[in-house]
C-alpha cells in the first residue's frame, strides 16, 4: 500500500506499524522500547510522528508511530516541528537522571541512547538538580549491572521474561525510581541472559567478559563468523584487537538466529586467547621440540611419502579442512573421528532429510511453527537457540490465534499478551528427562529412548492408520498418541524436532514417520535433527566410515601414519579404542588448536587455527553451509588453518612444490565436483578475488583508531597491514563503504546508528531478511517425492528395566557442554560438576543416596566412579553422565552398563 511520509510516496507492506514502515524505507526515527523481535508497547514516547487526516489537513495529531498501523493513503510527517520538539522533549526527560558517564561506560560508541540523543538534537542539559542513584547488583559472571544509566524502556524485562522465559529479573518500585534487577544479588538463571547487553539501549546490562579486555566498537577488527559451540550454527561477529579475540556479537540472520544468541555462543570465545593454545610446531622425541617450518617439512617428507596414511576427520573442523585431509589421504583412508553409533545416527538423520519427504526446518521456520513436537532430544541443553525458537513458536501461535478473533495486530505486544493470557500454542515434549521447556508444553512425558520412539511410532500410526502394526501399543500410549496426533493434524506448519543425543536411531526414524505422515497437501511440515558439533552435518555428508573402521585398516606392523584433524578422540570414543588405534600407528600427526589428551600422543603437533584465525565453512543441522572469516592476523605465528597445513603436506607427498597458494574457494570447487551431495556449496561466498568497484570489504570501521601506534611498541617501522588472500575482506579500514553483501557483513553500522540497532539498515524490513537474502546455502534441497518412499516400520520392543544393566546416556548442560566453550572461566563456574544422575527409584534399587559413589563399568572398560545425583522427573533404568564439558571422556552412550556402589 502507498503511504505519504513528509509528502513523499512510499510503498509499504500492509500489517506493519508506522515505525516499522519508516525504518523499512530507510528513514531515521528515534525509538527505545520497540524492538523488532518483541513488538510495541508504547512505553518510551520517543517515536512520535504527526499523522494527518488527509492531504489538506495541516494541523494533524501526534501519535506514537509504533502503536499505529499503516493505512492505505496515510499522510504522516517525521520532520514536523511539533513532532520534533516533542521527541527532543522526551529525550530531555529521559536524560535527567542519566549519569552522562559515557567515558567509563562500556556501551559508549555503540549506544542506542547516544545515537537517539544526537538524532533528536537534544544537546544541552537544563535539569540542575540531583540525579537519583541506585545500588547495582551482582548478576553473575556474565552480565554487569549499572542501574544508574537506566532510561526505563522496559526492554530488559520484556526480553528476559516474555521472550526468553526467565523469571528472576523483574521491575521493582514505581515513579521515577523504578528498578530493573533481581530480587537480590545472584546469578541470572536464564541461559540467554547475554542478549540483555544488546537489548538494553544503554549501558545498564553489559558484557562482563568484555570488561577484562575492553575495547570500543570502533576500535575492533570484526569479521562475519559462525558459532562453534553447537550444531545450530548461529551467525556471530568475532571481534579482535591487539591480536586477541575481544568479544562475540550477534550477527543478524533472519533464517537462523535472528537478533539473539545463547550464552554459550556469546561468551564461549575465550579458548581462542587461552594459554593452552598450541602456537608452535612441535616435533616430539628430539632435542629441540619447537621447530621451524623448514624443519617440519624435512621431518614430514618421509612420513607422508613412504607409508600408508590414515586421516581422521573432525566434526568441529571446517569442511575445507576435512576435505583437504580427504585429498591428502585418499577417500579410502579417510574416517570420521566419531564413534560408530554417532556416525550411524547422523547417517539416519541425513537419510531422512535427504529423502525429500520432509523439509529440513530452519530456526525461523521453527519460530513460526504452529505446533511443535520434540522427541528424544534435550534441545534446551544441546541446541539452546532452538529451544528459544520453540518458545517463540508456542507464544506466537497463541498470540496469532488471539488476534484472529479481535482486530488487534500481532505486533501490539501488551494487548496481545493481555488477550492471550495463559494460552499457549501446541508443544509436546517427549524426553528422557525434564527440561525448562516442559513448562510450556501441552504434553510432557519422560521415558527411555525406546519407549519414546514407541510413543512416536504410535503417533505416526494414528496419523497414518494401517501402515504400522499398532496392536502392541498400550491403551495409555494410544490415547496419548491420539491427543498429540490430533493437535498436529490441526496445525498448518508443524515442526518435529529430534536429535542424536538419546543415542537411539528409532527415535529419529519414528520422528521422521510422524513428519512424513503430516507432510500432506496444504500442510508444510518441517523436521529438525540436532547433532552434537558445529560441523557434524558437514562431516556426515562426506559419507566416510566411522573411526572404528580405521582400526581394521591398520595391519600390525603396517607402518601407518595417522593424521588426526582437530579432534580430541578421547572425547568421542572410549579410551581403550583410541589407545588401541594410536599404538598401532608408527607416527601420529595431530593438527589442533588446544592441547588435549590426543595431542599428548602426537609425535608431530601442528598449530591449527581456531575459527578466529582462519577461514572455512560449517554446515549446521539444517544443512545450511555457512562461511566464517578470519579475524585475528596470524602473520607472526606459526598458526595456520588446518587445510593449509594439509595442502602443504599434500604438496610434499606429490613432490610438486610449485608455490601455488591455495584458497578456500578452490577447495570448495573441488569438493563440489568430487562430491555431488555438496552441490551449490561454492555459492556460500564469492571467490577470494571478489571486489566491489575494485574495493575489498574492510573489517575495521572507518573510525578505527591507533593504526600507527598499535604495533609501534613491537616495530616502529609500521609494516604493511596483514593481508590474507583467502577472502574478499581486508584487514584495514579502507575499502568499500556501503552496505556489503549479506554474507560479508563484518559489523553493523550506519550513519547516525552506531549501536546494534543499525541492523535495520541492512534488512529489507525490520525482522525480515538481510538485503540480498540471508547468508548460507542450503545443501538439503526439498525434493517432490511421494511420502510412501521412506517409512520405517520396525517398532522396537518396550524397554525392560533390569537391575544389573543400566542404559547409559549423556546429560548435556546448556552452558557447560562444549569442549571449547569450557575455556571461558565464567562459563566453567556456571557449569555442573560430573555426576552419575539416576531417578529416585533407580537409587532405591541400587541402594545408594545422593553423594554416594557409583562405579561405572562396561564390558571390561572401567569408566571410574562418579558421585550420585538423584533427579526427579526422569525415567527409571537410565543413568545419565554429564557429557560434553572439558573434563569428560568418551563413553559408549546408548549401551547398557553395570553400576555398582563403591563402599
Amino acid at each position, binding site marked *: 500500500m502507498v503511504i505519504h511520509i513528509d509528502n513523499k510516496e512510499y510503498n509499504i507492506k500492509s500489517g506493519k506499524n508506522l515505525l516499522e514502515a519508516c525504518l523499512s524505507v530507510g528513514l531515521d526515527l528515534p525509538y527505545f522500547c520497540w524492538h523488532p523481535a518483541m513488538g510495541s508497547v508504547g512505553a518510551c514516547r520517543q517515536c512520535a510522528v504527526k499523522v494527518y487526516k488527509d492531504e489538506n489537513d495541516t494541523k494533524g495529531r501526534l501519535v506514537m508511530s509504533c502503536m499505529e498501523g499503516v493505512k492505505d493513503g496515510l499522510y504522516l510527517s517525521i520532520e514536523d516541528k511539533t513532532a520534533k520538539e516533542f521527541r527532543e522533549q522526551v529525550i530531555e526527560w529521559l536524560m535527567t537522571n542519566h549519569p552522562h*558517564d559515557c567515558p567509563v561506560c562500556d556501551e559508549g560508541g555503540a549506544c542506542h541512547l547516544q545515537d537517539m540523543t544526537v538524532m533528536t538534537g537534544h544537546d544541552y542539559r537544563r535539569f540542575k538538580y540531583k540525579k537519583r542513584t541506585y545500588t547495582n547488583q551482582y548478576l553473575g559472571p556474565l552480565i554487569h549491572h549499572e542501574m544508574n544509566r537506566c532510561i526505563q524502556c522496559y526492554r530488559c524485562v520484556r526480553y528476559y521474561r516474555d521472550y526468553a522465559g526467565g523469571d528472576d529479573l523483574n521491575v521493582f518500585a514505581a515513579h521515577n525510581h523504578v528498578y530493573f534487577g533481581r530480587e537480590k544479588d545472584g546469578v541470572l538463571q536464564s541461559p540467554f541472559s547475554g542478549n540483555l547487553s544488546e537489548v538494553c539501549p544503554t549501558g545498564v546490562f553489559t558484557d562482563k567478559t568484555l570488561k577484562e579486555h*575492553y575495547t570500543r566498537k570502533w576500535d575492533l577488527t570484526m569479521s562475519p563468523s559462525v558459532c562453534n559451540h553447537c550444531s545450530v550454527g548461529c551467525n556471530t561477529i568475532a571481534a579482535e584487537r591487539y591480536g586477541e579475540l575481544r568479544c562475540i556479537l550477534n550477527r543478524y540472520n533472519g533464517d537462523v538466529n535472528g537478533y539473539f544468541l545463547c550464552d554459550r555462543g556469546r561468551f564461549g570465545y575465550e579458548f581462542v586467547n587461552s594459554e593452552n593454545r598450541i602456537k608452535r610446531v612441535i616435533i616430539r622425541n628430539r632435542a629441540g621440540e619447537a621447530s621451524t617450518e623448514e624443519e617440519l617439512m624435512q621431518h614430514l617428507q618421509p612420513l607422508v611419502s613412504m607409508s600408508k596414511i590414515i586421516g581422521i576427520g573432525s566434526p568441529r573442523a571446517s569442511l575445507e579442512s576435512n576435505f583437504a585431509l580427504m585429498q591428502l589421504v585418499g577417500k579410502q583412508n579417510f574416517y570420521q573421528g566419531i564413534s560408530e553409533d554417532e556416525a550411524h545416527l547422523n547417517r539416519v538423520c541425513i537419510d531422512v532429510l535427504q529423502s525429500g519427504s520432509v523439509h529440513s526446518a530452519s530456526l525461523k521456520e521453527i519460530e513460526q511453527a504452529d505446533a511443535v513436537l520434540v522427541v528424544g532430544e534435550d534441545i534446551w541443553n544441546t541446541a539452546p537457540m532452538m529451544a528459544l525458537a520453540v518458545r517463540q513458536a508456542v507464544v506466537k501461535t497463541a498470540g496469532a490465534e488471539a488476534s484472529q478473533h479481535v482486530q488487534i495486530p500481532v505486533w501490539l505486544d501488551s494487548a496481545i499478551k493481555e488477550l492471550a493470557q495463559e494460552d499457549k500454542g501446541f508443544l509436546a515434549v517427549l524426553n528422557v528427562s525434564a527440561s525448562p521447556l516442559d513448562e510450556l508444553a501441552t504434553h510432557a512425558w519422560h521415558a527411555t529412548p525406546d519407549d519414546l520412539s514407541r510413543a512416536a511410532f504410535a503417533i505416526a500410526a494414528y496419523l497414518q492408520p494401517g501402515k504400522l502394526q499398532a496392536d502392541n501399543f498400550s491403551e495409555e500410549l494410544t490415547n496419548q498418541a491420539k491427543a498429540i496426533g490430533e493437535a498436529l493434524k490441526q496445525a498448518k506448519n508443524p515442526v518435529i524436532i529430534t536429535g542424536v543425543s538419546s543415542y537411539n536411531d528409532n527415535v529419529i526414524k519414528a520422528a521422521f514417520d510422524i513428519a512424513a505422515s503430516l507432510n500432506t497437501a496444504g500442510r508444510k511440515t518441517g523436521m529438525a535433527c540436532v547433532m552434537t558439533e558445529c560441523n557434524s552435518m558437514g562431516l556426515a555428508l562426506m559419507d566416510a566410515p566411522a573411526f572404528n573402521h580405521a582400526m581394521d585398516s591398520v595391519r600390525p606392523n603396517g607402518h601407518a601414519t595417522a593424521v588426526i584433524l582437530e579432534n580430541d578422540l578421547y572425547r568421542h570414543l572410549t579410551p581403550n579404542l583410541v589407545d588401541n588405534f594410536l599404538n598401532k600407528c608408527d607416527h601420529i600427526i595431530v593438527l589442533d588448536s588446544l592441547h588435549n589428551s590426543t595431542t599428548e600422543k602426537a609425535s608431530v603437533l601442528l598449530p591449527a587455527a581456531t575459527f578466529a584465525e582462519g577461514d572455512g565453512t560449517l554446515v549446521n543441522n539444517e544443512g545450511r553451509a555457512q562461511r566464517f572469516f578470519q579475524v585475528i592476523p596470524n602473520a607472526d605465528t606459526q598458526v595456520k588453518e588446518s587445510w593449509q597445513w594439509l595442502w602443504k603436506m599434500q604438496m610434499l607427498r606429490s613432490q610438486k612444490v610449485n608455490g601455488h597458494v591455495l584458497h578456500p574457494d578452490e577447495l570448495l570447487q573441488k569438493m563440489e565436483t568430487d562430491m555431488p551431495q555438496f552441490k551449490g556449496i561454492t555459492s556460500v561466498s564469492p571467490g577470494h578475488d571478489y571486489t566491489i568497484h575494485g574495493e575489498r570489504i574492510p573489517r575495521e570501521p572507518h573510525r578505527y583508531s591507533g593504526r600507527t*601506534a598499535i604495533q609501534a611498541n613491537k616495530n616502529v617501522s609500521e609494516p604493511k597491514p596483514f593481508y590474507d588472500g583467502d577472502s574478499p575482506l581486508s584487514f584495514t579500514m579502507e575499502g568499500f563503504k556501503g552496505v556489503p553483501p549479506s554474507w560479508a557483513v563484518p559489523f553493523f553500522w550506519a550513519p547516525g546508528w552506531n549501536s546494534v540497532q543499525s541492523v535495520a539498515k541492512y534488512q529489507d524490513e525490520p525482522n525480515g531478511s538481510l538485503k540480498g537474502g540471508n547468508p548460507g546455502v542450503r545443501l538439503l534441497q526439498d525434493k517432490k517425492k511421494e511420502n510412501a518412499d521412506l517409512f520405517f516400520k520396525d517398532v522396537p520392543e518396550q524397554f525392560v528395566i533390569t537391575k544389573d544393566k543400566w542404559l547409559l546416556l549423556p546429560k548435556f548442560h546448556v552452558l557447560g557442554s562444549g569442549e571449547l566453550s569450557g575455556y571461558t572461566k565464567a562459563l566453567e563456574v556456571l557449569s555442573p560438576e560430573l555426576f552419575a544422575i539416576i531417578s529416585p527409584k533407580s537409587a532405591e534399587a541400587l541402594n545408594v543416596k545422593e553423594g554416594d559413589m557409583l562405579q561405572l563399568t562396561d564390558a571390561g572398560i572401567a569408566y571410574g566412579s562418579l558421585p550420585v545425583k538423584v533427579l526427579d522427573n526422569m525415567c527409571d533404568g537410565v543413568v545419565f553422565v554429564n557429557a560434553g564439558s572439558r573434563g569428560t571422556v568418551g563413553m559408549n552412550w546408548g549401551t547398557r552398563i553395570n553400576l555398582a556402589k563403591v563402599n
Partner: protein
Amino acid sequence: MQTLIPHNADESRRMMQSLTNRAKPVDRRPMNFVDRLYLPAVLKGMSITFGHIFKKPPTIKYPEQTREFSPVFRGLHVLNRDEEGRERCTACGLCAVACPAEAITMEAAEREPGEENLYREEKYAARYEINMLRCIFCGLCEEACPKDAIYLSETFAPSNFARKGFIYGKKDLLIPNPVTQPEEYAKAKGKR
C-alpha cells in the same frame, strides 16, 4: 600569438617581474679613486657592526634562558592527575579516535577495590601509548578529552638516536604526583 612561456634564459629574465617595489638596480659604473680606497665602505660596514653593541640582542641564551611560550603552544603530551594525585584518564578512547595521525592507542582496565587513590574513575588506561614519530602536535586529543586528562605541554620532543625511543608510554607521559612530588609536578605542569 603571444605566449607566456619563456623560450630561453634571457627571455625568462626579461619576463620576470619583481615581487616588491624595494628592488634596487645594481650600480654597474666603474669604480673611481675613492671607491678603490675601500676605506669609506669598510668604515660604513664597521659602523653597522659596532652599532649592534648598543642594541638589545634578539637572541636569548638558551638553555640558561628560555623564551616565553604562546598560550596556545603545543608541545609534548602530558597525562594529567587530579589534585589528589589520581590519574584522570579513563581510557575512553576519544583522543585516539580524534587523532588524525592515528598515533594514540590504549588499553582500558577496571579499577579494583583499594585502587581508588590511584585512579579517579572506575576505569583507567592500563597502557597508553603515543607514537611521537607520527604525532603532528595538532592538539585534537586535548580537545576531544572529556576528562581534562591529556594536554599538550610546553616541552619539546627531545632528540633520540633510536626510533623506538619515540614510542611514549604511560611512564613517559604521566605527570608527577602533586601530593608526593609537588615540585616536579609544578615544573611539569608549567603555566597551565
